[in-house]
């Protein structure tokens, strides 16, 4: 029997939630809201929409928890709900990539005032990368971006992504390849033309293992 101070497993919390224990469900919310929000933000590229998706995901999970029989992991179930909501969001938004990017452009991102004491060059270098990657990611088609996000940030296998996206494994590989290629072109066109010279910071084995936990 797990003691009071021991962390409950997802499965234990799910079964307690299904019996009407709100606190148990809230522990699941605390545990998973950040990963779900991160996923939604990267797939949608919009903070408010990502928050909406995150809330809606847990709301649906809460409503459906009694019907969740544990045939998949709770996290996989959550991810599936979130991805479906993201897809709906992306479809309903019907934003053209260029418009989408200009929505996200924030001049403050480029020159953060709170980095005191560093030169302008340092500031630019410090903040440029994330926002440039973010903008470049928003220019690639939703399905390619989703595949890349699931691969890079969630550490899923091509087969798992194919399962999420409901398409053959070969299609997922094509999406990731085309997405990365497009991303490379975008970054180069934005003046980040030394992509290949940067040291690769792809997730190491430990990170990958940690990421795999989520599925």
């Amino acid at each position, binding site marked *: 029997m797990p003691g009071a101070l021991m962390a409950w497993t997802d499965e234990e919390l799910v079964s307690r939630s299904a019996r009407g224990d*709100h606190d148990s*469900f*809230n522990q699941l*919310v605390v545990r998973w*809201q*950040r990963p779900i*929000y*991160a996923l939604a*933000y*990267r797939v949608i590229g919009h*903070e408010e929409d*990502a*928050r909406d998706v*995150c*809330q809606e995901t*847990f*709301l649906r999970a*809460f409503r459906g928890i009694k019907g969740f029989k544990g045939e998949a992991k709770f996290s996989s179930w959550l991810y599936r709900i979130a991805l479906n909501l993201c897809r709906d969001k992306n479809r309903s938004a019907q934003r053209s990539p260029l418009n989408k990017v*200009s929505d996200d*452009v924030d*001049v403050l991102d*480029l*020159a953060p005032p709170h980095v005191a004491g560093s030169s*302008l*060059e340092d500031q*630019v270098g410090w903040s*440029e*990368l*994330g926002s440039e*990657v*973010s903008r470049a*990611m928003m220019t690639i088609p939703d399905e390619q971006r989703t595949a*890349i996000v699931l*691969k*890079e*940030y969630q550490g899923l*296998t*091509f087969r798992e992504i194919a399962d999420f996206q409901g398409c053959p494994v*070969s299609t997922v*590989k*094509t999406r*990731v*390849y085309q997405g*990365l*290629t497009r*991303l*490379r072109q975008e*970054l180069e066109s934005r*003046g*980040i033309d030394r*992509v*290949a*010279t*940067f*040291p*690769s*910071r*792809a*997730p190491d084995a430990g990170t990958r293992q940690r990421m795999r936990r989520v599925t």
Partner: protein
Amino acid sequence: MMDNRRDDICNDKSLLMSYLYDECGLDERKRVEAHLAVCASCRDELQALTGVRGRLVDWTPPEPAPDFRVVPADAVAVPRSRPWTFWQAAPVWSLAAALVLVVVTLVANLEIRYGDDGLVVRSAWSDGVPSSERTQSGTEALWRAELAALESELRQDFETFSSGEPPQTSETISSEVSEESDLVRVQRLIEESERRQQRDLALHFAQLMRETDAQRQADLGRIDQQLDRHQHLTEAEVVQHGEIMDYLVRVAGR
């Protein structure tokens, strides 16, 4: 045979993807590596894609992340400090009622008071709206005068009534006056009072309607102005952003 394999890997990128993400078996790995040893184009591509992957690590979701809880319906009345305690909240009708109340209060800026002089419903924005935004000032003066007259009339009545007889009505009315005439007088006063109250209510209602309309017109005007201003601001921001981007390109090119 070897040429065919090279073409396969050059044309069909799925094997390269499997290799990039370390998802291929030993045989496939050897095959790709053998190909990379002789194909500069695929080697460059692999290196570039690895570089792009390295860049992706810098893309972090913005802070703060959402923070919310499920709140049981019976705990809704307790105020919570948590920012997003929203669902499982109140029944829909109570939310709707609260919303209506808030909207009405915001729109009408009402002052509702229940005191010695009865229920007072007063629309208070007439003090808040700048005079330039007022409309229908002619009619407004008219019904304001009407209201003032009514008010003074009522006050007068009330004073004569309370000075003539103590407010405790029939039980303490002087015995010199006959009971019958008293009764008639009281009835008349009550009738008059009721009529006045009805008229008063109607006037107040009319005033409310007029002021709502005037306020709406003023608000629409202001919204238009704000929209115009924001449009100008957005354009200015775009220009500013363009300048900063130009600068960045120059700095990056150094």
